[in-house]
């Protein structure tokens, strides 16, 4: 929709209906009456049209064994977390040219801009200008009695080097996805947050960043610890909150959106409501004087009367969006009423050593020594407060290393050799996102909305022609968006030789820090990096927006994955689950399992599932 235009009326000019009734009429766009009747008010009419969203990343602890070597504290390299903010399905499109895949950002597929506006970082220092002592102070195994104590002397060492960088995903035509020389990383933003900023006065905030974000790129947050080397200190409950803004978009409509309430699945425009209800006064009606009649003030075709009609519509406030129960307004005038949203969900964080190795996996919940059918599992229960439509789900799988110190069979301290990804072709990771009902109730039920099964991340038994061993059942690359090596952010540009030199590995094929994988939505026909279903509506209901076949309302939900939703529109929470298993056991071969001594299973700090979609004005 374009801006409303009008013909100016200079003094002495003959007054015609074009001066008054054309701009406020209902018959043609972009007249005001037409926009009011057809939910036509959009970005052209709304100067403040950006809605904020946040990517909030919480890390319960980072201690001195992060990326350490041997048994000494090191803080050797930057701690990293990647994320991506793909275009919503409406504007997601890819094109292939000469066999290579590119984003198709032309015409209707031009993604709306995303701007990084603000970053705030906080940590728990017990409310004092102190450093927090970690569990390795005085104990090699991390059972030091001083864990959590305050150290006021070493507060001066609490400095962080924060950065955000971007890289081109290997999805877009990396000829050798394992090779780190394809990982050109450009710094977007960085800041040194020195110790005077950590005197317990609250979060450190960086405002007005105003950096454009490319929705087809991978972004990597990095935290460096320049003064922590050799210190047994921990960063506790670190919280990184990034605030972005994204232009408002039209909320999802139509029957293709899964689990969508029928009520409001199309815009409740004044025109639609008037036609459906027969209420003639639902729509704005502008009566234009007929030809050769006098333009009056108070008559039904008068100036005052018709301006009053517009005025009254404005007095009621312009409507759009959905409330917490998915309800839309009785009429809707706003054409754009939804924003971009990301819910960042942590899984497998806060482990004993920061990550999980095959040597100590039996200490993990649900893994029993000797039971090779037992497996790692974690889940988050996220109550649904406001409705959203889920467009993409992305898993960031963590392979970041840590000091592989462990208690050997004779009880003495030992450290592993070079760590490795799980050396098993059967290593399997599953991620599911579901909606569920039953909280404070008596009927538990679930609906699946996204699911990923990925096997053999190392490419065990791979060959030059089939490095991931897809022929042998390796499914890890089939949903892979990116591979990220993310240490030492300050180096700016990366190269293979630099990374090899920094990390000291002789075989770069084995080592990288993160994988980004697509967790496809159920169903089919949607847009995304890999085949997946249409967006899924997730939201609580009241009677008109839930399933009730006996009601007078046309209030069923759309199908979800080809069938009526089990939750019947009564979903109360989002559940994100993740399991990690190996069919011959997750323990080492020496302990009766199937993994090697120096395999690690889950990287330091755990994994992230990003639930990405549209939220609504509320």
């Amino acid at each position, binding site marked *: 929709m374009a801006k409303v235009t009008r013909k100016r009326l200079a003094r002495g000019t003959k007054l015609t209906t074009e001066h008054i009734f054309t701009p406020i009429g209902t018959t043609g766009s972009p007249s005001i009456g037409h926009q009011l009747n057809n939910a036509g008010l959009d970005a052209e009419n709304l100067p403040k049209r950006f809605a904020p969203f946040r990517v909030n990343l919480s890390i319960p602890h980072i201690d001195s064994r992060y990326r350490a070597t041997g048994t000494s504290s090191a803080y050797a390299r930057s701690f990293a977390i990647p994320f991506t903010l793909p275009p919503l399905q409406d504007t997601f499109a890819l094109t292939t040219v000469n066999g290579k895949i590119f984003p198709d950002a032309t015409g209707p597929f031009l993604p709306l801009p995303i701007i990084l506006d603000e970053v705030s970082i906080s940590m728990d220092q017990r409310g004092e200008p102190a450093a927090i002592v970690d569990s390795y102070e005085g104990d090699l195994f991390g059972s030091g009695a001083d864990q959590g104590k305050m150290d006021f002397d070493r507060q001066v060492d609490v400095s962080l080097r924060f950065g955000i960088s971007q890289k081109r995903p290997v999805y877009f035509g990396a000829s050798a996805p394992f090779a780190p020389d394809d990982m050109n990383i450009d710094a977007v933003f960085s800041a040194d947050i020195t110790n005077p900023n950590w005197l317990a006065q609250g979060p450190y905030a960086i405002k007005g960043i105003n950096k454009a974000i490319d929705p087809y790129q991978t972004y990597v947050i990095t935290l460096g610890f320049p003064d922590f080397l050799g210190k047994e200190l921990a960063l506790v409950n670190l919280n990184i909150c990034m605030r972005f803004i994204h232009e408002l978009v039209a909320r999802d409509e139509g029957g293709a959106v899964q689990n969508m309430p029928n009520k409001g699945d199309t815009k409740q425009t004044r025109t639609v409501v008037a036609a459906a209800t027969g209420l003639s006064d639902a729509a704005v009606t502008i009566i234009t004087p007929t030809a050769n009649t006098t333009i009056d003030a108070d008559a039904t075709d008068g100036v005052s009367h018709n301006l009053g009609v517009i005025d009254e519509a404005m007095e009621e406030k312009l409507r759009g*969006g959905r409330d917490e129960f998915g309800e839309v307004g009785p009429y809707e005038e706003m054409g754009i009423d939804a924003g971009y949203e990301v819910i960042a969900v942590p899984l497998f964080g806060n482990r004993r050593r920061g990550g999980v190795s095959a040597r100590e996996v039996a200490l*993990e919940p649900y893994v029993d020594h000797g039971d090779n059918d037992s497996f790692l599992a974690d889940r988050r229960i996220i109550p649904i407060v406001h409705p959203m439509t889920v467009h993409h789900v992305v898993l960031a799988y963590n392979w970041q290393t840590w000091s592989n110190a462990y208690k050997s069979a004779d009880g003495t301290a030992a450290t592993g050799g070079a760590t490795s990804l799980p050396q098993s072709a059967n290593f399997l990771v599953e991620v599911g996102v579901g909606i569920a009902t039953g909280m404070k109730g008596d009927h538990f039920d679930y609906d699946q909305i996204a699911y990923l099964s990925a096997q053999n991340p190392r490419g065990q038994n791979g060959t030059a022609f089939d490095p991931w061993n897809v022929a042998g059942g390796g499914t890890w690359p089939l949903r892979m968006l990116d591979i990220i090596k993310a240490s030492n952010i300050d180096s700016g540009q990366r190269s293979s030789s630099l990374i090899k030199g920094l990390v000291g590995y002789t075989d770069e094929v084995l080592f990288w820090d993160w994988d980004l994988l697509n967790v496809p939505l159920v169903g089919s026909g949607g847009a995304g990096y890999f085949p997946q279903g249409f967006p899924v509506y997730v939201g609580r209901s009241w009677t008109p927006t839930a399933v009730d076949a006996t009601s007078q309302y046309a209030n069923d939900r759309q199908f979800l994955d080809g069938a009526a939703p089990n939750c019947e529109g009564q979903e109360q929470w989002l559940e994100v689950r993740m399991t990690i298993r190996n069919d011959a056991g997750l323990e080492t071969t020496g302990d009766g399992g199937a993994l090697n001594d120096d395999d690690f299973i889950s990287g330091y700090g755990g994994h992230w599932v990003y639930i990405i979609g549209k939220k609504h004005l509320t």
Partner: protein
Amino acid sequence: MAYRKHTRILTDEQFATNTTIDGSRIDAAMGDVVSRFNELQRKDLQRKLVPCHYVWGWQPEPEENFTDFVASVTVPGTGYVDATGLNTLPSVGPATGMTVDILTSAGGVTRVFVNAQGSGYQVGDLITIQQGGSGNNATATLSTSYTHHWPWLNAYNRSADVLAGTGVPDVFINTLRSKGCRVPGIINKTNPPDYPLGEQFAWTTELYVSRPAVLDSLHLMLTLDENSSSKPYNGASPFIWPSGYEPAGAEAFDEHTDMAVNVQVADVFSPRDRGRDSLEVNRYNFKIERDAFSEIYPGSPPANDMAPAFPSGAFTSSVFGSAVQLKDLNIPLHQNATARIGVIIPRYTKSNFPEGWWGVQPWSKQCYTLLVTTLEEME
């Protein structure tokens, strides 16, 4: 739609029959109307806020890893073969009942895993592994494992909690880090050996908003497994005192009321001093068990589970525990506000008394998900 006369919103110009109008007034009126629609303001919209979601959570290492013994090979012995459930002989005292699984190499024991914990054992005890055909000469030393308590930190700052050998401040800025969380049975004083009596651990997170926002909701999900002692987060009688605890005035089977959930907003002029924080939300002295995820024991699996299945027991994937839900808070957060979100749990330590349901590692009793939603304006 019907028209009724009212004070104009879009323009100050009024037109009525039998009054004089001119082009300038009409032009001004139309200019007002058109420019208003081309420059809509937030106030023109009925809904102008969007929700933002913040999620925290983790699965702690289970308490059993702390309380259970693990064994390390001291003497490998001779003549052993891989086996499970072997009896052991204690080196001292009345200890009895511990069995072990062993892995061997060339007749010597290389790994020992405690199978049954038995009773009466202590850290440092030596056990001798019994197996027919062996020399019955392999020994192992018992120790307990370790679980950290991140991100929980003591809620009470005192000099004893400063690392020995480092400087101690004359005065702490925040002796108590959270407001409104005092519970009976825990006394924060600094006169050893009687005080402090018990401890409180706080998980506090600071959020910053640069523009005005509304704190909309806070949901703390404390999830447990089903009622089974074989599961790491046993859901049997959750948040119930198993026996009395006189200092807290608790009798057996009373419900625990000793967790607090709060939100404090930092003072603009003295953000470090938490005594000056504005306590905006405080859920305390409530019966945690009454916030049960469901009062009705499901008794059967969900009608339709999601994938992957969760290994929580026979009632796969059912959710147990408590859901502390603070909804429709509608608390304004001013520009440049710091909101401190705190969850405070107790650890009871009076000698000769049990620790209550929370046990010796209260942070290990359940899994956590915390959701906070704020409402923020378009810009």
